[in-house]
């Protein structure tokens, strides 16, 4: 891995990254285009008004897509380009003049629709959603995919102040939130704002589940289930504030159906699901994103040809992602492509490249 280009150098597809035969980006000889089904319907459009401006947009898109096509910034947390919209975080609400606000990530446009993306009603709900989330979840690493992965910017923009609901509660002991029974809770005295804080679940060498950071966006459950991996190792369990992502009876991942594909990590917007390597570096304060390089390459294992993004710090692979827009993977890998890179760090004894 000595052949990394310096940080900041932009690689084009097909650029050869050096002498290490394992690291190269996708070859231009190979068509990046997967044949797609013929267009089933002639594109139709609708006319609508967004923030007072008349616009014409395709008739089958979400309000979010319509607004983004007009360059309007709408915050999202639980929507991801590769997964079915769940419409649960309610960050993306807009005012369509209805009795209640509409989730723009899943509500569709309609002929003659009037949409306000930034009026008082909308701003108020977004502010409260941010405050409620930040007062109950550790959102330090949280951020939406678009436009820039930062929740902090939105907190500032909407003037969200989570401390209005009181000082944070102490973390729950390990396992306590998993043992909660539906329909029951301890009566609060209101002196602290209850949080989902709890110790991280560190039950294997590959990745960590730190549900103190979980905003319950359902992305991991979708990715593990019918939207991608079809393994169904995890589900949302419990209900209300005790709802949580869980294996059956909270067994460790190794005992569950998990195949360690890490596809859940790839879609988690909060850092709740994290490579063990990243987790350990963060714990000792050694995680330095600015010093890392990201190299796009193709997985060396099988013939499928999945695109990998190797995150490298201090000459070690610390995290492997796959881009959501990669033709072959849509961000999904298998255990080998995701975690099988220890051998890269093993050098022959006595060699000048010994780690």
């Amino acid at each position, binding site marked *: 891995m000595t052949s990394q280009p310096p940080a900041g150098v932009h690689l084009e597809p097909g650029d050869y990254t050096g002498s290490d035969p394992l690291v190269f980006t996708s070859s231009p000889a190979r068509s990046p285009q997967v044949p797609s089904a013929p267009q089933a319907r002639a594109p139709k459009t609708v006319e609508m008004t967004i923030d007072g401006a008349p616009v014409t947009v395709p008739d089958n898109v979400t309000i979010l897509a319509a607004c983004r096509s007009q360059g309007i910034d709408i915050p999202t947390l639980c929507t991801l380009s590769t997964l079915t919209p*769940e*419409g*649960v*975080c*309610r*960050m993306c*609400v807009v005012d369509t003049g209805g009795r*209640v*606000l509409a989730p723009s990530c*899943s509500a569709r446009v309609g002929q003659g629709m009037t949409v306000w993306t930034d009026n008082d*009603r909308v701003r*108020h*709900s977004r*502010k*409260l*959603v941010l405050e*409620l*989330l930040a*007062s*109950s979840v550790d959102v330090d690493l949280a951020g939406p995919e678009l436009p820039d992965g930062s929740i902090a910017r939105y907190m500032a923009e909407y003037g969200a102040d989570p401390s*209005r*609901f*009181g000082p944070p509660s102490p973390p729950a002991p390990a396992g306590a939130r998993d*043992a909660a*029974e*539906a*329909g*029951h*809770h301890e*009566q*609060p*005295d*209101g*002196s*602290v*704002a*209850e949080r989902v804080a709890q110790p991280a679940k560190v039950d294997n060498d590959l990745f960590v589940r730190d549900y103190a950071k979980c*905003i*319950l966006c359902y992305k991991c459950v979708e990715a593990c289930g019918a939207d991608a991996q*079809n*393994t*169904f*190792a995890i*589900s*949302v*369990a*419990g*209900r*209300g*504030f*005790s*709802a949580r992502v*869980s*294996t*059956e*009876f909270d*067994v460790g991942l190794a*005992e*569950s*159906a998990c195949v360690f594909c890490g596809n859940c990590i790839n879609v988690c917007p909060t850092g709740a699901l994290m490579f063990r390597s990243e987790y350990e570096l963060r714990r000792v304060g050694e995680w330095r994103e600015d010093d890392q390089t990201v190299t796009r390459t193709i997985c060396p294992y099988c013939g499928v040809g999945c695109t990998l993004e190797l995150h490298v710090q201090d000459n070690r692979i610390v995290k492997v992602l796959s881009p959501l827009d990669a033709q072959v993977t849509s961000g999904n890998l298998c255990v080998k492509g995701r975690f099988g890179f220890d051998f890269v760090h093993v050098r022959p004894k006595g060699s000048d490249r010994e780690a």
Partner: protein
Amino acid sequence: MDLRIADIAVSPAEREAVDAFLSPRIGTARGGWDGGERNIELDGRTARGGHEARSHRDLLLPTLHAVQDRVGWISPGAVAHIARRLTVPPAEIFGVATFYALLSTTERPSAAVHVCDDMACRLAGAEDICQQLEVTLGPAGHAQPGEQRTWHRSPCLGQCERAPAALFTIAGDPAIRVSTGPLDAPTILARLDDGVHGQGRLEAVEGPLGTAATPERLEQLRLLAPQAGQPGLRLLARIGRVDPTSLTAYLANGGYRALREAIAAGPERVIAEVTAAEVLGRGGAAFPTGRKWAAARAAEARPKNIVCNADEAEPGTFKDRVILEEDPFALVEAMTIAAFAVGAERGFIYLRGEYPLAEARMQNAIDRAREKGLLGRNVLDTGFDFEIEIRRGGGAYIAGEETALFESIEGDRPEPRSKPPFPVEVGLFGKPTVINNVETLANLPHIVRDGAAAYAATGTPGSRGSKLFSLSGHVARPGVYEVPFGTRLSDLIELAGGVRDGHQVKIVNIGGAAGSFVGPDRLDLPLTYEHARAEGVTIGAGAVVVFDETTDVLDILRRIAAFFRDESCGQCVPCRVGTVRQEELLARLIAHRPRGTVADELALLDELGRAMRDASICGLGQTANSAVASGLRVAGVLS
């Protein structure tokens, strides 16, 4: 899907409970990957995987009930066995089981009591009961080592006329499930002992179990529906007069005349009459039933479904229970008319898990009707097929929301779907579905038989017909009352005997936890949808809980706030976290420890309420602040 199921032993009782329920329905194969035949030519096994094996997902909740009923909890071994037999991933089974308050995924004693500590029962001393149970049995939900009995707190059990009430569940073969009241702590403990020791007394306590229309029975029924036996009633006409277990008795008292007339008139005429009668849904949302039916009839996909929403879990509401328990054939007939009108082949009654007597009576009515060719293939020789199945809820208020209810029947977590699409297009099993409340359906035979004009002569222009109200709290004769729309709130309270002697009304809850409060100055409110709307209150499903001046209103509001926190499905942020913050804020006000001033707290509560109303996915989150906010305003407790 490639299931990986842990190799955990299933106990003989668990296996028997699962297999006794599933085998008659899906055969005896162990699961999708088992039981295929060895095919020499293909040189392999043909798995029964794929769609066929997964098509029984809707049997998941009933299977979980079977295990819970038999063993008292759902163990990892039971989950593994169910996973194999239904080809459902264990994690998803766990996700479903942990959603419901009546299902347990931790070991608990077989004899359990769920003690109601909700509005009416609080007024009747439920907290005292809970404290005494805590002394004997330990804290709620934590059975002491070696103890064979356990207790839980419960939201309203729909037995408010006999507060304080409780639901007993004794696991076994057969299981005993009894909802009853009024109770005190010693009686509860004695009944639990009866259950533990298998003495039959517990089954016998549920009240008017005799069913023949005797004077004694009528007398007992007057505790539930005080007007029972009076002339001039429409929805309650048969209560106490007709044996609810006998189809013969039902037929002799006007039963099935409406279905015959509907068949003679044809579906279009039936829908036209229902539309002309302007009947509005009684489940809380007051949507025009005729419009719903017409849309479902026009939908093209097949098969269509009729669903009766009998999940009645709104605190203070027990009016559907009267029909389910005491006039079950009327509901079977009404659903059959609805099915005929919209062209549906399958009917489901989603019935509250806390209503065991209603379940028994409804199942009996369905079975008797099927025997006589009034259900099944070729109903009344018309060539139209219709079947009804009961699905038991698991203790989740949110499962009463129509789309959550579909998810529950389908074997998923009852989390509301986003609408559109609406149920009349994409409903249960993705098919066009009419979902109606029990009381809405109970109106239909009357409309069909008497005609829309006669029906609409009762009530007001905006609210046709009569309405069942559930009266509880500080009234002399709590119970279910039928009055024409337009009756004043004060007259309704008088009908229930007024408040106790020497006391005055302090505040009245209309519509339950999702409703709101009015003060004594607004008792002249005519009870109609249009008046309620104009006054900024809601009739909801017709709960009326009366509180006299001895009531600690803040304590009631706190119970409501706790209710919403417990019952939120947890999907969306404004409701999942908002209900927690609302309860915390109320706790600070009650403890006189506001953050900042009381006015600051009220302003924050108002901000919270606006976001919950505007940004929550479903009606639960959207209304979770309304009763609390209106209660604070009306009672003026903080000013």
